[in-house]
């Protein structure tokens, strides 16, 4: 085999992590470039996986352990690729490193967080609560090093964190840096964002307090979320006992996302189990166009369907309004099989918001072709560049893992030529 050349993975979510770790364990050097301060992406925000209802942090922990035990993986967080040139076997990439303001001496003792006077919306929890400007996103995170949010931090005028840090770990003068990499292959794994529900005006997205997204629901149900895992509705902290799920919120809709987002049916069924487990007297209604639970997921659908507390209705939700006095939410639905119109009130409504490839709004530098919806077109990618997971089409974690593992062999083909 020729010399070992590096492989670059852009994105440190589950696809990127998988591509990186699998490539490294097959004997190649890998560099991960992650935009945020921590690895794990969307998966780190999930409470449980469907259909096993097991905690995603379990798999993340194993992958983080694989990284810790592998000298061939280099990680850059708060990093963005600025340019890509060259070709397979010899790509030149420049990466901009944004300052973390915290160096490797950080022991994650939490002293900076305690003294930080700045509160900012917690993005990890989709704005459902606040976090300090000096923070970690959750307590099983990786790298286990704090970060200071440059936008919200008051800087040297405050510097309380600098004073309190016993380990000389905070450097508010930290400047952006640029690193240049030469790599043989590039994996694009920048993942997805939730569809912006404020565009769903008829569904009250972003306007009605007790209309939340499926990803916000994951955070509400998570032990490390804004409510410590207790599902409470945002407007008044009331326990929601009567909840509706609106499927295809944005998806399968020419005016929004023409494609199916793959995961939302299973996600809503799964979230129905969160509610039913936490509040045995709760009622869950799911309104769907087609129930899409491919393969053995069907069994999970049957299990949830058998729960008398869960009602499934084939129907399109036409309108959602708010009762401003009570905070309750009213739904108008066309029940297509019964051919009638249902109007019903709920404590809270979850919009099964679709997946939007991150490349819809932030393109990766280099000659990459995208569809109208922002998906990467794999056939037009340069040799030696590979897209994985939800960058090509909406997929679940299982399929992303298959795809990312498969891409690892392609990077080896590129790097050992």
């Amino acid at each position: 085999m020729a010399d070992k050349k590096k492989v670059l993975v852009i994105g440190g979510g589950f696809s990127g992590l998988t591509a990186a770790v699998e490539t490294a364990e097959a004997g190649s050097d890998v560099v991960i470039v992650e935009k945020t301060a921590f690895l794990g992406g969307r998966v780190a925000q999930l409470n449980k996986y469907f259909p096993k209802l097991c905690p995603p942090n379990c798999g993340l922990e194993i992958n983080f352990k694989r990284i810790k035990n592998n000298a061939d993986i280099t990680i850059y967080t708060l990093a963005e690729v600025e340019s890509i040139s060259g070709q397979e076997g010899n790509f030149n990439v420049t990466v901009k490193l944004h300052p973390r303001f915290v160096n490797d001496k950080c022991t994650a003792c939490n002293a900076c967080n305690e003294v930080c006077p700045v509160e900012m919306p917690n993005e990890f929890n989709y704005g459902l609560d606040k976090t300090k400007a000096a923070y970690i996103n959750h307590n099983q995170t990786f790298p286990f090093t704090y970060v200071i949010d440059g936008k919200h931090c008051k800087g040297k005028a405050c510097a309380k964190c600098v004073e309190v840090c016993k380990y000389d770990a905070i450097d508010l003068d930290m400047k952006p840096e640029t690193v240049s990499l030469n790599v043989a292959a590039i994996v694009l794994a920048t993942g997805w964002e939730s569809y912006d529900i404020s565009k769903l005006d008829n569904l009250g997205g972003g306007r009605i307090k007790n209309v939340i997204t499926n990803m916000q629901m994951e955070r509400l149900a998570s032990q490390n979320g804004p409510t410590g895992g207790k599902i409470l509705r945002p407007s008044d902290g009331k326990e929601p006992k009567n909840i509706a799920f609106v499927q295809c919120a944005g998806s399968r809709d020419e005016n929004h996302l023409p494609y199916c987002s793959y995961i939302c049916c299973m996600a809503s069924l799964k979230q129905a189990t969160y509610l039913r487990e936490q509040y045995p007297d709760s009622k869950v209604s799911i309104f769907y166009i087609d129930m899409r639970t491919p393969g053995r997921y069907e069994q999970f659908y049957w299990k949830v369907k058998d729960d008398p507390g869960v009602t499934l209705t084939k129907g399109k939700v036409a309108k959602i309004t708010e009762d401003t006095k009570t905070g309750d939410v009213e739904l108008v639905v066309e029940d297509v099989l019964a051919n009638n119109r249902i109007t019903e009130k709920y404590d809270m409504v979850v919009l099964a918001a679709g997946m939007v490839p991150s490349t819809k709004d932030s393109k990766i530098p280099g000659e990459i072709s995208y569809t109208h919806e922002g998906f990467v077109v794999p056939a037009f990618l340069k040799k030696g560049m590979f897209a994985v997971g939800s960058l090509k089409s909406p997929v679940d974690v299982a399929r992303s893992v298959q795809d990312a593992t498969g891409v690892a062999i392609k990077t080896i083909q590129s790097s050992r030529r």
Partner: protein
Amino acid sequence: MEKKYGVYLCKGCGIGEAVDLEKLKTRAALKGKVPADIIKEHQVLCSPEGLELIKNDIKEGTNTLIIGACSPRVKTDEFDFPGAITERVNLREFVAWTAEPMSDDAQSIANDYMVMGIIKAQKGDLPEPSILPDLSTALLVVGGGAAGLSAALEAANAGYQVVLVEKEAELGGWGAKLYKETPRSHPFEKLEEPKIFDKIKEVEAHQNIKVFKSSVIEKTDGQPGLLDVTIGKNGSSETVKVGAVIMATGWKPYDASKLEHLGYGKPNVITNVQMEEMAKKGKITRPSDGKEAKKVAFIQCAGSRDANHLPYCSSFCCATSLKQAKYVREKSDDAIAMIFYKDIRTPGQTELFYKSMQNDPGVLLTKAEVTGISDAPNGNLYVEADNTLLGEKIKVEADLVVLATGIVPSTRAPQEYLDGLTEAGKKGDEAKKVYLESTPKPEFILNLAYKQGPEIPTLENAYGFADSGFICFQYETRRTGIYAAGCVKQPMTMADAAEDAAGAALKAIQCVEHVAKGIAVHPRAWDITFPDPLMIKCTSCKRCTEECPFSAIEEDEKGTPFYKLNRCRRCGTCMGACPERIVSFKDFSVDMVGTMIKSIEVDEDEFRIIVLACENDAYPALDSAAIKRIKLNPKVRIIPVRCLGSMNLVWVSDGFSRGIDGMMLLGCKYGENYQCHFIKGSELANYRFSKVKETLDKLQLESDRCQLVQVAINEYDKLPEMINDFVERVEEIGPNPFKEF
């Protein structure tokens, strides 16, 4: 290696304020039997200056380090000292962050942990890998369909030799029988020419691939890196040596003869497989009279999503029927296609194809419960359906009906046969004999010459699919070095199968590369230690050969167990199973943990509880509780283990005979949706614990003093309370009467 010890205590992160380090030093030196002057402290051990202190000692010959600082899960780069035995003691998370600072409890906990750390380092040794000779890096691909061809090509293009075995006379599988493929690329509207023929050509011409057609695997013997595969072809046999296997043996269509209620058996009712054959030949005609079909009805989920047939969705049939509807429309302008579905399932961008078909006025789609197919005049058929979008109870005439039949994995028949055999075996030898004589033996796939059976054991309730039990790790099977891909694993489309096959090929490559270096594969893909039994004491009880989740231990003709080391995943289940306690790893052994347990200080008037925690999930959960500064019960002492499967019962008597009051095991959820990374570790530990009663009875102790608790990594905030509950129960029972001895 002659050990020269260095013990280091960090004062940072609150440790210095929680514990009297002078007392700790004295205690550690005394009980750990190390000179007091080798115990050093530093304000911040992970700082460059702190690390310098350790590195200078290493330069002076120190090679065995005990570092009392933070959790071994953090600062891993800092405390990485290649060539030295490094034992990390978790004084930060388990003492400073969870115990009352400067209390007797905190001091006692820190003392115990430091002493245990020193003992662990004393009992351990620097591992060296075991590398077996004459290893092969070639890969065997079983199955030459879409998945198998892709796996073979990907591996061959990565520079590996491949042996491809196909049962049929030609390569290509179902993919070669298709007329067209569903659209795979933007704008997802045009049917595509099958790409499989290019792949077949490429495979047959590839210098790294050797193809065996009309061939089956007669026997697979050995272990990863050293697998002797006997390939049978036309009555003759040939043996090839490979390092790892990709099982891509695909699927069979569901037996349509079981679908009489949907009209199968009537001349003009065909399956989607027959439809492909017909479209490929030319016109779409009716079998009864050869007339061109003008009104074609497609019945979705024919067998699939049906508790009486296949209780799963076959994943590709919706897109396939839409594609076949397009055949109908393209081959004849005035023909119409009607699709009766439960739900249309075209996930992801395949939705765009569905949309384009919805726009065709000649394609009618309705949700329906098809209640029957009956005869109409002229050889036509009525499709009777209820609850449709067109109304209740409708009857639509068609001149051809296509049943969208689903898939059955090729692993299902052998699995069912073997399950039946196991059941019969439980009833005795006679029942087994009757079973073998009366049950037709299906085609086996791998014919493994393994103690635990000839095929990969499939998951419970997976209907024979050779699926992984893990969402995060899609290629896990219970036979190391054998990876399933494509529809044998999960129902999937051909495009997905090609991606999946590439992944399986990568895992196979990792496996051969790792065994060449003597490193384990997932989930301990860095581990060079291995089980090293003291065979002279083996009594051939066979518990290890039965309990090993990966069938890594065989028996010779005298019944003496021996390891096929490259199958081993290093979970230590054999170490836990062995009643003679003869299995050891260089850094983990029964004696090591037993001695650690025995070193725990037990006061007459104090309760002391041992917690054995799975290092994969329970231990990180304990760390996380500490990060939240949730107080841990000061009566417990936590010892991490590789997997609860490594829990040896002797540890119970080690503990109780020394006055320990209770023992708690923290492991992963088990059962159908098990979370154990080694399949059955916690379940086996629980089974062993249920046997513990005997041991306790002998000691005249209550068995409630032992409990296994299943805990997930995200349950960290409940975990301290779970521990408290257990401690309270033990306190109710009262102190261990052995304390006074």
